[in-house]
């Protein structure tokens, strides 16, 4: 099995403004913990790190909110989401 995986990152709503892009791809170690992946995202996109100080962000993996200790596997799509505002 591969050791490195490519993860699709989605920046939703205001976080796309902060990142400057709506999506990106990152190569990371398979099984990387979500908190470490988010740290890598923040290093690559410092605007996201600054925005997170003001905006509560939920991290989704394939559409489901996961804990910081969740291990990211192949075919993962990780989305950074601000509070919803439907209605």
């Amino acid at each position, binding site marked *: 099995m591969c050791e490195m995986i490519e993860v699709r990152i*989605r920046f*939703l*709503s*205001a976080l796309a*403004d*902060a*990142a*400057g892009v709506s999506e990106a791809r990152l190569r990371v170690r398979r099984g990387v913990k979500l908190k470490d992946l988010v740290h890598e995202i923040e290093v690559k*996109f*410092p*605007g996201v790190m*600054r*925005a997170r100080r*003001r*905006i*509560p962000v939920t991290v*989704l993996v394939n*559409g489901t909110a996961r804990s910081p200790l969740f291990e990211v596997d192949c075919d993962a799509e990780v*989305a950074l*989401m*601000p*509070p*919803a*505002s*439907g*209605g």
Partner: protein
Amino acid sequence: MPLGRIVREEIDLSKESAEMLTPGAGGALVVFVGFVKGVVDGKEVKELEYSSYDPYASEKLKEIAQEESRGEKVLDVRIYHRVGRLKPGDPTVYILVSAVNRGIAFSTAQRVLERIKREVPIFKLEKREDGEYWVMGQTRIRRTEVSGELSKQI
């Protein structure tokens, strides 16, 4: 049959309502339609730009419709939420609930609306005469304050 999904166009409420009527079983059909407001905080609203995280937004709307339709004395629930650029007066969200009585229908429709606001990955950019604001839950952040974060990177 409970339904829920993201839509771009307006919904034919007559058709939806007719499909949800259950002669002899239901005593009430509540139809809630949300519209784009023309004024917020005393400022004119030019446009609301709704976006969603798909396919999860549609999946969540369907899940809410299915869960709420299992409530006691609830017969059917349908939820449609629009995305795209909408003008004041345009419909944004449709919630239809048929139930055995009006109390159940009203309370279920209200609960569905609150769940949509909290649980479904739908986002709103409010374009007003005084600027653009990201709406996040109960708060608004001026768009330039967020994209200003970007300018600090460059």
